[in-house]
């Protein structure tokens, strides 16, 4: 997918949006706080809002051009949206909702098999139901299916996960990734959640005040935001359960063993660990109450606000810790130095 948008839209002085970017990729994020213009961007791209002037080109096709007098109507753009609160048609069954776009898609564009999609999204048992008798997660799965079945060339996920709790969020993320890869549909994932952006995209446009501020990778964005964020940098640790010991769970993380209090009996899990919950020692601390002591190598350091981020390598895994500037100076933390990372068992937060 290659998208370029050089457009301006003014909402009577209250808000104005100006963009000029080109982005290429299959899983692109748009990150920004509410009011930064993300939803306006979605509306402009889908044809629901008409720009004052400018040009929108998707995969070589011009969707809008004020200069050439082109404005492709939304129904012909093949750009489908999944909204925050599913927006299913309340007067139709799940099946009719799913087929709404499919039936209207010209035969030459119909590449997705309905049965295959229904099974990928696990919608088999729901088809005859009315949409008001679905749970939040089911609704969003149907909305995703409905959008994909319209055979779009681009899927817009407009804060599609924001209304869901963590467990459902991960479930939908899993479905979205599978469906997008299986049916080769690129998506633009719009969110104010850095976590969602990191889990779902490989590059990201940052927005603020109606402008696209930059284009970067989710990892880079997370590091830049570490200093100003309330929660620091969130490390995502994919782990495998080994055993239970006393009140603690023992997980394998790469080549290390981790002691975690908030574990459960699932064989696999993803844990969040804030960069703020990692304490660094330059020498082996003889006795600490924290249950996890990892020997790591400093790979890199980077400034972020008044903090210094420290990229650590433990075995094959990477961990980001943060220290204040003075601490970094005192400890003389530099690349290739060895340090000990100390983490309390209660600092891990379960995601799934």
């Amino acid at each position, binding site marked *: 997918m290659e998208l370029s948008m050089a457009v301006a839209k003014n909402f009577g002085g209250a808000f104005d949006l100006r963009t000029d970017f080109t982005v290429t990729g299959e899983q692109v994020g748009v990150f920004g706080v509410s009011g930064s213009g993300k939803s306006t961007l979605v509306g402009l791209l889908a044809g629901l809002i008409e720009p004052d002037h400018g040009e929108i080109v998707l995969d070589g096709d011009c969707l809008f051009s004020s200069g050439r007098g082109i404005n492709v109507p939304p*129904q012909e753009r*093949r750009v489908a949206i999944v909204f925050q609160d599913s927006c299913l048609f309340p007067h139709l069954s799940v099946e009719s909702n799913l087929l709404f*776009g499919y039936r209207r*898609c010209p035969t030459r564009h119909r590449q997705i098999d309905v049965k295959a999609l229904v099974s990928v999204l696990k919608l088999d048992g729901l088809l005859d139901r009315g949409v008001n008798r679905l749970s939040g997660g089911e609704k969003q799965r149907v909305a995703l299916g409905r959008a994909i079945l319209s055979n779009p060339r681009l899927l817009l996920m407009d804060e599609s996960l924001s209304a869901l709790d963590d467990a459902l969020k991960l479930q939908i993320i899993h479905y979205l990734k599978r469906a997008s890869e299986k049916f080769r549909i690129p998506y633009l994932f719009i969110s104010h959640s850095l976590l969602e952006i990191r889990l779902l995209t490989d590059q990201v446009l940052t927005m603020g005040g109606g402008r696209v501020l930059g284009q970067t990778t989710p990892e880079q964005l997370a590091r830049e935001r570490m200093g100003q964020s309330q929660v620091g940098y969130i490390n995502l640790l994919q782990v495998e359960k080994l055993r239970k010991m006393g009140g603690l769970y023992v997980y394998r993380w790469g080549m290390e063993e981790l002691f975690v209090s908030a574990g459960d009996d699932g064989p696999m899990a993803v844990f969040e660990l804030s960069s703020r919950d990692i304490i660094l020692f330059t020498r082996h601390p003889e006795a600490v109450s924290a249950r996890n002591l990892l020997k790591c190598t400093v790979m890199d350091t980077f400034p972020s606000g008044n903090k210094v981020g420290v990229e650590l390598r433990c075995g094959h895994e990477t961990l980001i810790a943060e220290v204040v500037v003075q601490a970094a100076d005192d400890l003389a933390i530099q690349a290739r130095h060895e340090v000990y990372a100390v983490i309390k068992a209660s600092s891990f937060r379960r995601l799934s």
Partner: protein
Amino acid sequence: MPVLSSPDIDAIVLSLKVALTATLLSLPFGFLYAYLMTFFKFRAKVLLEVLVNLPLTLPPVVMGYLLLVALGKNGPLAPLLEPLGVRLIFTWKAAVLASALVGFPLLVRSIRLAMESIDGRLVQAARTLGAGSVDTLLTVILPLSRTGIVAGSSLMFARSMGEFGATIIVAGNIPGITRTIPLAIYDYAGSPGGEQAALLLCAVAVALSVLVLLVHESLTRKLTRRQ
């Protein structure tokens, strides 16, 4: 036990015929008008709004008189109707027209309420899923306005059954041709010894109104449950 006379039955049948025709004729226009007013912005909106709602506040007699002037032999609409051989004044069709004009704002009001309660993003979703505006109107907006359409139609039907002022001027009060229930009651009330017959027709009017309201209520409930 009082019984309905043959002219009374004629009046009842005529009332039902006029009210039903007026409602059915107005429905497509009412729906389109509500759609225009809910989903579009245009310059003459306020003016159109005032014109359509005028019959709500205007005395029906004034409506009737203006219709009479407009449709009359030398009226502004005469050159339009005459070549077609259409004569409206003092026929039951004039009663339909009068009822339609007076009941239209009630019909539109309910449909608009229903349309305004439709989440705008449902319409947007339909558009991005490949439905054009007419397609969206028929497959999303129309079914989601059902409650309003039913409610508005029944209100308009009931209002048409009771139309008096405009009808008597533009359609007259001709027994068997344009004399509806209200006109018949008016006749009985003015003639000595007509109390019994007048009361009987009143009872019929009350019964019909109650019936319409009951149907309206049960349909609305059914639709809200489905939605």
